[in-house]
């Protein structure tokens, strides 16, 4: 006979299921209640800024990833551009690959015009993705900065328990704004590179290549 080691009534699987279900739902209920903005604001008024900063850091990570990806796309396009600028390297008789993937440099000679356009399109899409995020982030950071400065000036020179926390948040915002500036400069440089590449694709030389291919 099996001995029950735990005190209390022995629960069968169905009772365990009921208990787990109720506990899970209660957990969601309590967590939801505690995470309501009004409740959070009541207990810790600076919590919202902390959450927002966390989201901003995540956004910065996405921007960074976007910029790296855009840089990679432009590097490939630049490598592909060199053979494009030399029409004699692309024999018109040579069959063209239908592959739409980005090819390495040694495959660049047979890079089809539609794929070039698709790659330019993809790079432009990525640029807009990053630009949108940067634009939005800039305004959010400015707004938070304004807001915190106003609150700090309200507190003034008087001592407040929340002043150091606000100053710390303000400092973090300043740091993120400096990172934002780096990202923005980086995007501007990449945008100029992309525009040059796109111009090249619509230049007469590029048109000659595409006409050769059509023949």
């Amino acid at each position, binding site marked *: 006979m099996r001995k029950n080691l735990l005190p209390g009534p022995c629960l069968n699987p169905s009772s365990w299921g009921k208990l787990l*279900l*109720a506990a899970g739902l209660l957990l*969601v209920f309590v*967590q939801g209640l505690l995470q309501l*903005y009004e409740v959070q604001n009541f207990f810790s008024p600076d919590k*919202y800024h902390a959450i927002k900063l966390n989201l901003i850091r995540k956004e910065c990570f996405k921007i960074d990833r976007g910029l790296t990806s855009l840089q990679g796309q432009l590097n490939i396009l630049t490598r592909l551009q060199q053979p494009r600028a030399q029409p004699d390297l692309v024999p018109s008789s040579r069959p063209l690959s239908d592959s739409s993937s980005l090819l390495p440099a040694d495959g660049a000679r047979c890079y089809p015009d539609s794929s070039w356009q698709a790659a330019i399109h993809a790079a432009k899409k990525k640029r807009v993705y990053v630009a949108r995020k940067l634009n*939005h982030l800039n305004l*959010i950071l400015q707004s938070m900065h304004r*807001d915190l400065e106003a609150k700090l000036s309200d507190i003034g020179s008087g001592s407040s328990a929340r002043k150091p926390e606000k100053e710390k948040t303000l400092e973090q915002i300043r740091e993120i704004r400096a990172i934002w500036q780096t990202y923005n400069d980086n995007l501007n440089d990449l945008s100029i590179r992309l525009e040059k590449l796109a111009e090249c694709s619509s230049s007469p030389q590029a048109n000659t290549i595409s006409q050769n291919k059509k023949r």
Partner: protein
Amino acid sequence: MIILALGAFLLLFGLDNRPFWQDEAETACLAKNVLKYGVPRAYDGVNLVSQEAGNEYGSNYLWRWSPWLQIYVAAAAFKIGGLTTYAGRFPFALMGLACIFLVYQLVRHNFGDRPWALVAAALLISSVPFLLYARQCRYYSLGAFLTLASLYAFREKWQSRTFPALLLCLSLGLLFYSNYLLFFSFTGAALLAAGLLYYSEMPLARSLKLIITVGIIILPGLFFFRIHQQTMMVSQGAILANLETYLGDFFQFMFPLPLAFYLLWRWGQLLWTRSGLSEAPQEKFILFLSLVVLGNILILTPAPQGEFRYLVHLYPLCAIALGWIVCRAWRYQKFSGALLAVLLLGTNWLYVLPMDWLGIINRPVHNDPHMLIYPNLPLKLYISELSSPYPDVSHNLIRFFQTHARPGETILTTYDDLPLQFYIPCRILGGLGGPIVLTQPPDWLVLRWYPRWNRQYDLNESEVLIRQLLSNSTDYQRMVLAGEDEIFGNQPDPYFHHFIPPVESLSPLTIYEKKSPSRPMP
């Protein structure tokens, strides 16, 4: 009756609190032109309706981008109720109300389970995103209503009786003319799911007849609405991104992830133990609905834009499935059943928190805590919007030009050109439309802080033109309005819908007025 009365209040009260936003205004402007020309023309002699760089119409300006049913519904409402915001939204809100009734009726009539029917209907009226979409002058509630009507007909004896068969064909045909994306995704998924689960109830000859009839109904539209041209926008690279978007949105706003896992576990267990699906018609129907929803999402993924609005017609299906789960939980353990009902009816915690814990929640940085992506009491937010509506960006723009611009003046704007076209007797240029021909400098410029790019990922022509006009000239005087320059006005998308003014002020609305000695300063 109480649920319907509550639904009527939530759907019809303060329907015109906020003006049309850009997409609604597209339908409204075209409906206005229907009253004038009998057909939806994009050009009324002064203004041009376009959000796709002028690709939506032919040489005669006849609208060929999207189906006409929603436009004619709005036109009929304008004919009866006048050219007002309330009239434009009213028939669509009524369709939303009809959805609540149909959800109740579908469950009650087919399964005789009154508590399930009541819970499902209550869940639908407490779905704030559904309410927001149903209050739009747009196809959303029409799509949901026709989806439900087709399901209702499908559960009747369409195999032998004429009326259900006719209703099935008509509802599917009309769904196409509401929005063909909804038609293809829903019909494709429903056909597959029905073939899988209800094959024994689908006589081949009759089924083929119905399919052919629906095909004949939609055939003219297939050619007229340039579907082929729009399929060119399909990008294989977007499929995975769209799938991620749709599934994320689905679990965040329509069907809580833990409950989806419960269904998967339940049906997976049945499959694993080979005990087979319970022959109970209720559970079979829930599995059918789940497959329809899943298939719908999968079929939608190659569509060019992964937008939450393409899932709105699935809300009633989700309400039915969630209602079934609540009733099962209640029968299993009353406390859990009641708690689950409270969580689903009054909060969004079961949707948002588990995704938060798993770190897979989509919480854009521009959102604030009074939006549906944060743990909230959605109905409280919704009722605060109904009871004390705030003037959104479209409202502020419209009000400004109603008091400051003179009829016939020209306004060039980067966005919200269509609401201005509907409400202001001026010549409105710009927005997301095609090439802009200026014979003289516009009297007013509106440069919104949120830049808009076209499908080629270049800045829209209106953006470029306004920046040029402002950089080369000192002829314009800058005016900063008190209101916030939000990205959208009354946009129902949970990622953009503000129930109360945004917590943070990002940028004020800025307007430029042409300096002219003959024009009195406001």
